């Protein structure tokens, strides 16, 4: 932190809901927003005597993710029962993985203020989600809680980072990069608002220079990039104030309250850590052979970092633009599709994406980018019309606005509306003559050495042409005629 006295040490546990059609161990659908308790069956309700069966696609997605992060996929892994009593879990145990997870030891490269940093990932495992609790009536006076088991049994992939993160910003950057990889892989929709990506953080402080880790506090309920950063900032402040006063940090679980911007202790979880794990007798081990794992590797598409590098090299983009595009699979796809149609000016296309397109849609909203009213091919067409001199950049903005509402391509709009740029020297020349004749003061100023006066004349001509005159040509004609007159 800024005061330099303590070093912040953070590790993140991320739970990602896998984008499968059916749940982890049964055939119930996984759609978000269905009526409560309408997507359950005896298996995800934890009825006695039922038999869970592993969803093959969930395993494939987890293996692809493991490979993308360079994790070692274990030749054999097992499921385990994690026991605790809570009404969100009807079986009184959660099927998870414990001693033999699916994969171990990898890393994610995260871009920070000091360049690229490698953040270790300790393990990746599969488990099932639990139901959702809501409070009946007013929080203060509620007599009961309500349970919706639609989420029970949803496939979750948990990844645990090494305590390699050194600041709240670092943690948020890790989560962004992590999400971008998952979305690029197509294994998770990355929608934090709907809970497809959730995060717990372990945070501790230690005197700068110390090698021993301080006492860690776990923070739960971090469901947006903003909350991750704010909760950690609060917690770092709280812990450093306590250490300054000579207090000891208590190892505990704290809950982030976004409304108050503060974390508070969850006493209820203090005794909850005796989970009595044992191998799940209903599920036999997974032994993934090398050839099958290699098949999964072959299914991995271009990942954000590689894509960013390609954008820099192939399209000549500045690294900041390349990073912005590569963070979003939909945006990067949009860019690639536009450039495929018009490869002469990738930079021009990207400028239109980063300025105009992203004014209309949120870069983080993959669905909105994918469904953007102007298809990438049409944006490419617009840039081409500018480049070949058919329309000016100014007119192009009007055309863009019309494309947004009508869905037509640029050439159709330009043709129908007569927006083609005037580049005929004869016609432009007479407009320039009129402007010179009508503005003797500007001409006199120019002759007196005020070169800026020419700009006023160019403006007059542009206005007279209804914005359609080719600005470069008008500029040249004005200069010529002024120096001759």
């Amino acid at each position, binding site marked *: 932190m800024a005061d330099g006295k303590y070093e912040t040490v953070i590790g993140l546990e991320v739970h990602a809901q896998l984008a*499968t*059609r*059916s749940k982890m161990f*049964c*055939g*119930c*659908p996984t759609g978000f927003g269905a*009526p*409560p*308790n*309408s*997507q*359950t*069956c*005896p298996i995800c*309700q934890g009825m006695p005597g039922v038999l869970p*069966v*592993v*969803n*093959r*696609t*969930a*395993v494939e997605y987890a293996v692809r993710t493991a490979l993308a992060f360079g994790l070692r996929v274990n030749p*054999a892994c*097992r499921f385990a029962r994690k*026991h605790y*009593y*809570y*009404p969100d879990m009807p079986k009184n145990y959660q099927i998870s993985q414990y001693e033999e997870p699916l994969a171990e030891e990898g890393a994610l490269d995260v871009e920070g203020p000091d360049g690229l940093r490698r953040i270790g990932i300790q393990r990746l495992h599969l488990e099932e989600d639990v139901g959702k*609790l*809501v*409070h*009946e009536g007013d*929080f203060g006076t*509620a*007599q*009961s*809680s*309500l*349970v*919706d*088991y639609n989420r029970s049994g949803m496939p979750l992939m948990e990844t645990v980072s090494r305590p390699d993160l050194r600041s709240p910003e670092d943690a948020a950057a890790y989560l962004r990069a992590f999400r971008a990889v998952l979305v690029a892989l197509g294994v998770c929709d990355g929608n934090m608002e709907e809970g497809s990506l959730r995060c717990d953080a372990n945070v501790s402080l230690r005197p700068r220079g110390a090698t021993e880790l301080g006492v860690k506090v776990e923070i739960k309920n971090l469901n947006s990039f903003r909350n991750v950063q704010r909760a950690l900032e609060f917690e770092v402040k709280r812990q450093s104030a306590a250490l300054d006063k000579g207090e000891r940090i208590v190892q505990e679980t704290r*809950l982030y309250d976004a409304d108050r911007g503060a974390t508070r202790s*969850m*006493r*209820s979880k203090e005794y909850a850590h*005796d989970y*009595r794990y044992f*191998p799940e*007798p209903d*599920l*036999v*081990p*997974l*032994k*993934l052979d090398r050839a099958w794992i290699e098949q999964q590797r072959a299914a991995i598409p271009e990942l954000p970092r590689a894509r960013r590098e390609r954008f820099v090299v192939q399209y000549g983009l500045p690294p900041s633009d390349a990073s912005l595009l590569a963070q979003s699979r939909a945006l990067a796809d949009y860019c690639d599709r536009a450039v495929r149609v018009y490869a002469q000016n990738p930079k021009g296309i990207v400028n239109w994406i980063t300025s105009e397109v992203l004014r209309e849609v949120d870069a983080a909203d993959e669905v909105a980018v994918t469904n953007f009213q102007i298809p990438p091919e049409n944006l490419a067409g617009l840039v081409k019309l500018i480049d070949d001199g058919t329309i000016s950049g100014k007119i192009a903005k009007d055309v863009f606005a019309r494309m947004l509402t009508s869905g037509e391509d640029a050439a159709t709009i330009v043709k129908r509306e007569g927006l083609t740029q005037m580049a005929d020297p004869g016609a432009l020349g007479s407009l320039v003559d009129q402007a010179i004749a009508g503005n003797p003061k500007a001409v006199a100023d120019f002759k007196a050495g005020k070169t800026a006066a020419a700009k006023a004349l160019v403006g007059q001509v542009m206005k007279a042409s209804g914005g359609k005159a080719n600005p470069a040509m008008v500029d040249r004609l004005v200069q010529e005629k002024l120096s001759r007159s």
Partner: protein
Amino acid sequence: MISRQDVEHVARLSRLALNDAELERMREQLSGILAYIDKLRALDTAGVEPTSHAVPLVNVMRDDANRPCLSQDEALANAPDRSGEFFRVPRIIED
């Protein structure tokens, strides 16, 4: 013999309320089970891979396809208490 505290701890984790006589009986029975495990421990298992299952099966997986769910009413039929579309349980507040 395992201690009375151990039995109380395990009982609490399992949400079992045991009286003194039951605690003592459980202590004896659990101790007997552990003694039997000790007997197994006497076997030479060097070179034997630990196993969690007696069946020689691995990789039992299914296709990612949807199957019919229970209807809402069926799903809620065994609920001890119900409120509209939800299971109702005693108030759970994280504090």
